[in-house]
């Protein structure tokens, strides 16, 4: 109980610090918000341009792709406003020795990093446009909507996404990668498209080895009630497996770091 209370207190403090910080740079906030809306608009224009030339992409119509994109942006924005920022800083923390400071604190480092740089302000416009797009796609489709199934699969998607971020960030314990944020951003961007466009080995990789399919395409299909029980079970299985693997690699990396920096 004390453990939860301690973390809750730290989360509140992190939110307070980040809120104060952002309010001080209100103008920057305005420009970044505009930038996000612009990037979002450009993505929509891109897909609109594609659908002008093709009725479907990988068998998905434009409304299904809006649901997919809405899901993609929800995951991207929430993860960037919460856990990604902390994990992206690992290479810097290792280089400047700050990681030792965090390791000496009586908190779980993985959990601490996932909320240390939580951003409650920037997420507001971001999540609004993402949910807006999701519901626009939902309102335009003729399929039977299954929100409960979507929310459940989305929760699994977040765990898989978090696990992949942890795995990629753990590489830093072995060798420093400065552009790690660009690297995982580019990998996750492959999920902006329906998984069905990918064929053969690539599809296998994106379904099992880096299971982007389960992060974006599967939740979007869950929303339109297109998932079989087998696929739901597979999602749950993949979620557990990846969380387990990520914990294993993280602990291995930490051990290696601690033994090297004694």
């Amino acid at each position, binding site marked *: 109980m004390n453990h939860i209370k301690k973390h809750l207190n730290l989360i509140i403090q992190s939110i307070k610090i980040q809120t104060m910080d952002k309010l001080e*740079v209100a*103008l*920057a*906030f305005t*420009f*970044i918000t*505009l*930038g*996000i809306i*612009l*990037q979002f608009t*450009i993505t929509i*224009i*891109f897909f*609109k*341009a*594609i659908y*002008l*030339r*093709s009725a479907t*992409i*990988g068998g998905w119509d434009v409304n299904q792709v809006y649901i997919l994109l809405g899901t993609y942006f929800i995951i991207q924005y929430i993860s960037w406003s919460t856990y990604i920022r902390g994990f992206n800083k690992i290479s810097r923390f290792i280089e400047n020795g700050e990681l030792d400071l965090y390791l000496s604190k009586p908190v779980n480092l993985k959990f601490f990093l996932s909320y240390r740089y939580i951003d409650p302000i920037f997420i507001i416009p971001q999540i609004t446009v993402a949910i807006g797009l999701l519901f626009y796609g939902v309102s335009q489709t003729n399929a039977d909507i299954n929100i409960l199934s979507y929310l459940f699969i989305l929760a699994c998607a977040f765990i898989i996404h978090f696990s992949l971020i942890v795995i990629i960030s753990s590489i830093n314990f072995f060798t420093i*990668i*400065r*552009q790690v944020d*660009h*690297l995982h951003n*580019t*990998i996750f*961007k*492959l999920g*902006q*498209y329906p998984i069905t*466009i*990918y*064929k053969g080995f*690539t599809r296998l990789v994106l379904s099992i080895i880096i299971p982007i399919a389960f992060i974006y395409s599967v939740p979007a299909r869950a929303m339109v009630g297109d998932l079989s029980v087998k696929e739901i079970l597979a999602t749950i299985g993949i979620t557990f497996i990846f969380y387990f693997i990520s914990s294993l690699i993280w602990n291995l990396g930490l051990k290696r770091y601690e033994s090297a920096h004694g």
Partner: protein
Amino acid sequence: MNLSKYTTVFKNSWQFNLEYRLDTLVRFLIALISLISVFYLWNDIFADKAEMLGYSKDQIVTYYIIVGYLFASIYAGLPTAQEIQDGSLSIYITKPISFILYSYWQSLAKKVFRLIIGLPIILFIFFIYSDNLYLVTDPKAYLILIITIFFAINILFLFDILIGFIEFWMMHSASIVMITDSIVAFFAGTLIPIVFLPNYIQQIANYLPFKYTGFFLIDAFLGRLGTEEIIFGIGIQIAWTLALMLIVKIVWIQGLKKYEAVGA
């Protein structure tokens, strides 16, 4: 103008980039990963079509490879805003050196270095996937590409430094970069060739310089433009370069007055 001091800047910047070559390679690896979706997406779109708006599937994939390579090489952000914000600009303005030319030669070294480092990767892709790509065999096309890349580098540099100068009047101007980066990349045609966009967006693109830093270069290289169109395009590139040079000069003078007035 004493060119030797700027060639030294070029050499130093080159050396710096050489030391950080792994970062450059990761940059290209990232660009390569993006190509995976491009390849499969256009494969899907072209499933029942031989061509679209005059592009064959091979040309489209080649377009993305070259635009990805070019932009990963020649679109490199400048630290101008940071230098104004932290006052390190003062180091340059007290020296017998032009800050703008200094920045130009420094960024030129970075861009040329990236173009050279990325070239074997591009050649390797063409070697492996030659059946799915459009191989340009006309030597003139390569010459045109080099000329147009040179002007594209100049346009992007001038635009970049101009955006950096905003810091003279506004703190935290770096947040604007997120907007300008998206605009530049979009109108340069890195996301999709401009001709695929709705007409009104194509019209907007015609009035901006960015089309001439990506889309135009590759269309000319792929042999999709006639001689007159290429000469006209290069003329537009030169016109934009001159116009931006003038604007940069004016903004620099005004900005410097403001910078010196606050005693930085």
